[in-house]
């Protein structure tokens, strides 16, 4: 197994190469406004660092969110295009699962916990995990005050709202190394990953414009 993994669902632009056993190389830059510019150079760089030719890859793992849409789509369309051009399968991973995997690798084991990332508009993207690290609730998008998170919580969303997540700590953003590790473990166990489709969780913002405003004032008379 030789996986290229990347994620653009959080402010991090992160890419990694994983051989099924370990991460061979990883890059990580935090710049929430430049996913589009940074991702492809990061992919190119991480393959060089790992000494892996792109034609030797066996699959792509990509974070499918939830996350802010504009950045999220950079990762998904890149994965779809690379998968098509290189003839590789694309495996989707819930970004929150990758953060959970990373938190456990960093020692958060033996108790349930919640992962929360920043969804803007005073909301968080969140999911809850049991003591074995299995997702038991979510992903969802809500105001922090409306949630009853576990005593332990990780992710930028938890750090941003300490009143709602008193036990908040790192990791803050997702790492592609952890995402690759999660995907490799799931694939090795024969489990299906997600399709390469974004977890938007919200309907598109689209307001029907207010009734045609008359220039003479008053109510417009529109023909039926």
């Amino acid at each position, binding site marked *: 197994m030789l996986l290229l993994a990347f994620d653009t669902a959080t402010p991090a632009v992160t890419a990694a190469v994983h051989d099924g056993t370990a991460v061979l190389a990883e890059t990580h830059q935090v710049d929430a406004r430049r996913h589009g510019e940074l991702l*492809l150079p990061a992919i190119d760089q991480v393959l060089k660092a790992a000494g892996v030719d792109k034609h030797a890859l066996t699959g792509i793992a990509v974070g499918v969110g939830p996350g802010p849409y504009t950045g999220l789509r950079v990762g998904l369309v*890149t994965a779809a295009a690379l998968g098509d051009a290189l003839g590789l399968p694309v495996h989707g991973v819930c970004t929150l699962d990758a953060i959970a995997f990373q938190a456990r690798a960093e020692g958060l084991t033996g108790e349930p916990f919640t992962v929360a990332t920043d969804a803007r508009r005073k909301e968080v993207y969140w999911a809850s995990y049991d003591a074995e690290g299995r997702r038991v609730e979510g992903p969802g998008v809500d105001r922090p005050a409306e949630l009853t998170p576990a005593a332990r919580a990780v992710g930028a969303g938890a750090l941003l709202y300490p009143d709602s997540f008193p036990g908040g700590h790192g990791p803050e953003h997702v790492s592609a190394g952890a995402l690759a590790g999660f995907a490799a473990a799931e694939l090795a166990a024969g489990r299906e990953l997600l399709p390469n489709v*974004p977890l938007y969780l919200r309907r598109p913002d689209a307001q029907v414009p207010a009734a045609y405003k008359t220039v003479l004032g008053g109510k417009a008379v529109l023909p039926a």
Partner: protein
Amino acid sequence: MADEPLVLGIETSCDETGVGIVRGTTLLADAVASSVNDHARFGGVVPEIASRAHLEAMVPTIRRALDTAGVKAADLDGIAVTAGPGLAGALLVGVSAAKAYAWALDKPLYGVNHLASHICVDQLEHGRLPSPTMALLVSGGHSSLLLSEDITTDVRPLGATIDDAAGEAFDKVARVLGLGFPGGPIVDRTAREGDPKAIHFPRGLSGKNDPAFDFSFSGLKTAVARWVEAKRRAGEPVPVADVAASFQEAVTDVLTRKAVKACRENGVDHLMIGGGVAANSRLREMAQQRCDRAGIRLRVPRPGLCTDNGAMVAALGAEMVWRDRAPSSLDLSADSSLPVTDVHVPAAHLEHGHFHDQAYDALGGGEA
């Protein structure tokens, strides 16, 4: 000619996911997936809906274009993509896809200007553009007069709209008349039944001291709305076809008069008309009459190539390869306000900082 460059072009600046494949100046495929019906009930293009649709349609549309052209991705000589101007989030989907294909296939990447592409597309229909060429670009997003010596390096703006684009005025008038969205084709069709001389609507910026090559359609739109409302208030029936025809006459009169004047004053004997509004039948007819009278050769691509499409991007990309222009780098960014003078975005152009911020700011605060 077999040694002419084979280029794939991707266009996602608005609501059409366009992928074209061109060999030199020959069109091989022009695949389009449109989200226009998803926007119709909102009366305009909703950026987030457009971006979502681009993501879904991107790879299937590329596959369809390659199948239609009967070429393999590995045979391409380059990948071109609209880098701007346009909707920031929509552009980003196309630019990201283009980069991924270019990198995966080891092909040069060309981030090109949407407006220059609208001009260059005519090469697919009428052969290489003469030097110089005057271009009148009219669409829902822009109304400009542009002078180009070499479409790969040099596009000089002579004038542009100071308020609404011509296509916007069509949309708004269609709404006032209750005709639906998008307004261009419906107004064109409705106007055929009407009298273009029935109502004299104002010709914007046509006074002696007005800027010669700038346009204004906001006053015209308001004049139409006032006229229609006055009729409705008086309880009289609105002669919809006459209003549509008279409005259309006012728009095309100003556009063609200024375009011909621009040619004359700059000693240019070729006029190219592009953009979605160039599909308007009255504009084409009036431009032909006035160009014939002035001894100017008119070049207008067929309607399908006037609206946004991938073929136009491929056409400019192929010209870039043909003329050996520098490719873009892998950190190419989508620039929602790319100036018309930046025909393409070569690697050296990258002034990091200001325009990236602009592109993202253009997304507004509403984005999740």
